């Protein structure tokens, strides 16, 4: 990719003989909010640390604005990091924390004071200059950590699970805050998280990772609605993943019943996996359904009811605003475009193989 801000080329990294990243290739466009999403140990944090300069890859190159920065120490890189537990300098007050990077660069006092005021305003903490970090709440400390990073005017801001230590309500507020910040600053964010909701809410691009490989790259809608494999489907949101047979183009046999779908080109009588999101399963009266079953569990979740329906030997997860009591006989129907067909992985290994490009 030519006009990319960052290019990761063939990054390989192992610790103590354990492979963390294997030939990872990724480009990040200017002004993009890109999220690396995956379970712990998937290599997302290592990728971020390689970008920040805290780890060196065993193989591969980090290209930033067309320059190879693979061997550059962190202090020579024109990017900044917001760390997981804020990592504020506890022996300095808020103003000194924010000024740290600027003082190192020998900026003038007036410039630094202007920047401090601007940054505190940006994160809605005006007047906090002379407070100590310990006297701030977690959310406030995280804002200061962001302010401390952005006064240096980096082209790229790396965020390592910055909301992980905050409670749910605060986390949701900060998600909107981060989107606003990114738009106001007009810089590129690379965000690391294991929280799929965070990733879907904030990102322009989501990179789903597992076991050191990229599983899928796409927009939030893309990775949610059209997961490329069972891992992505399972990791992002709730889903029914069922083994099935592709009878022919646009017709799939699931649990012995034939469903119309919109996918083509999988061949005839080919075993596949299908993903059906729980909110896409329609419960109808038994004579209208493609498959019939019995409701076995019912939970009220607030926005919707969550039900489990035993039908043709599979426990279907169903989310609906209409409640069906346990024991009810129901029919199951799925709209053709809500059935997502995926190739079956031939082995465990293939499940984790890069599906990039």
């Amino acid at each position, binding site marked *: 990719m030519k006009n990319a801000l960052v290019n990761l080329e063939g990054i390989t990294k192992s610790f103590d003989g354990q492979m963390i990243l294997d030939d990872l290739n990724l480009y990040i466009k200017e002004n993009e909010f890109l999220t690396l999403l995956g379970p712990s140990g998937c290599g997302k944090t290592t990728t971020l640390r390689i970008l*920040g*300069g*805290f780890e060196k890859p065993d193989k591969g190159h980090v290209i930033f604005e067309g320059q190879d920065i693979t061997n550059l*120490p*962190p*202090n020579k890189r024109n990017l*900044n*990091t917001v*760390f*997981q*537990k804020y*990592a*504020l*300098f*506890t*022996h300095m007050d808020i103003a000194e924390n924010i000024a*740290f*990077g600027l003082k*190192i*660069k020998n900026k003038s006092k007036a410039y630094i004071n202007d920047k401090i005021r601007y940054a505190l305003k940006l994160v809605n903490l005006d007047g906090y200059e002379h407070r100590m970090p310990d006297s701030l709440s977690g959310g406030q400390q995280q804002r200061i*950590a962001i302010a*401390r*990073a952005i006064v*240096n005017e980096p082209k790229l801001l790396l965020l390592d699970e910055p909301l992980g230590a905050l409670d749910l309500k605060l986390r949701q507020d900060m998600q909107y805050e981060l989107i606003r910040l990114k738009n106001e600053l007009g810089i590129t964010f690379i965000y690391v998280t294991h929280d799929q909701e965070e990733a879907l809410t904030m990102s322009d691009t989501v990179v789903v990772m597992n076991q050191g490989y990229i599983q899928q790259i796409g927009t939030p809608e893309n990775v949610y609605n059209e997961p490329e494999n069972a891992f992505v489907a399972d990791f992002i949101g709730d889903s029914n993943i069922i083994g099935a047979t592709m009878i022919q183009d646009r017709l799939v046999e699931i649990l012995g019943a034939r469903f119309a779908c919109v996918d083509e080109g999988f061949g005839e009588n080919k075993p596949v996996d299908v993903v059906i999101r729980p909110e896409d399963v329609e419960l109808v009266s038994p004579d209208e359904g493609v498959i019939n079953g019995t409701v076995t569990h019912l939970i009220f979740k607030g926005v919707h009811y969550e039900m489990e329906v035993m039908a043709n030997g599979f426990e279907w997860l169903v989310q609906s605003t209409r409640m069906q009591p346990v024991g009810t006989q129901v029919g199951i129907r799925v709209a053709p475009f809500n059935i997502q067909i995926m190739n079956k992985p031939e082995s465990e290994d293939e499940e984790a193989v890069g599906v990039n490009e």
Partner: protein
Amino acid sequence: MNRKLLSAPYLFWSALFILVPLCMVFYYGLTDKTGAFTLENILAIATPEHSKALWEALKLAFVSTVICLLLAYPLAMILCGMNSHKDSFIVLIFILPMWMNFLLRTMAWQSLLEKTGVINGILGFLHLPSLNIINTPAAIVLGMVYNFLPFMVLPIYNVLVKIDKNIVNAARDLGANPFQTFLKILLPLSLPGIFSGITMVFVPALTTFVISRVLGGGKILLIGNIIEEEFTKTDNWNLGSGLSIVLMLFIIFNMVISAVTDKDGEVNAL
């Protein structure tokens, strides 16, 4: 209530062996042989013999403390940088000598450093000039550094290991080179450990009489030696106590500084 009861044996112990002796030192120090009140024992520090010994002790304790600090800080940093199982092995090697008796270790240095000792034997065998530091201040400083180094390393290690690695990373990320990171982040954050280490080395070094006697050959008298002689040889408990009180002032001064810098009490909870 029950918890208070549990502390009774310790309270009894400390009353009997710390509080009572301390009161006795003050009683003897502030009275003469007839039991009448006097400041003479304390003012005796002004005599040339005593003030020279105090000055000498302060000087050697200071030099030892500085050397300990210079050796201990890098060592503590290395220990912090290691992963845990390697770490504990190095710590073990490091504290292994501490399990041996203090007197024994000091006497071992005596036989190592003697004119006809082990080190000179090896140097002579290699036709190298011999090392003549036994019975000099240098030998005493060596003994102090050897014996008290762990007391400097441990408090510094204790603060360094608690500093979040990402704080160091953040400084680097914001443009600081390794030296700036050390100066502006690591050093200020580890000050409580440094002050605690200084106290833990300076105080025993200032008051020692064993190291100076064994490695100084009785030629170099430190204030500790003078006080010891007043109690054991001259049998003048009043003078010995008076000089002890003077020495205590220096120790209290040092501990106050340490307490002020370590407000959280984290380090001294060691």
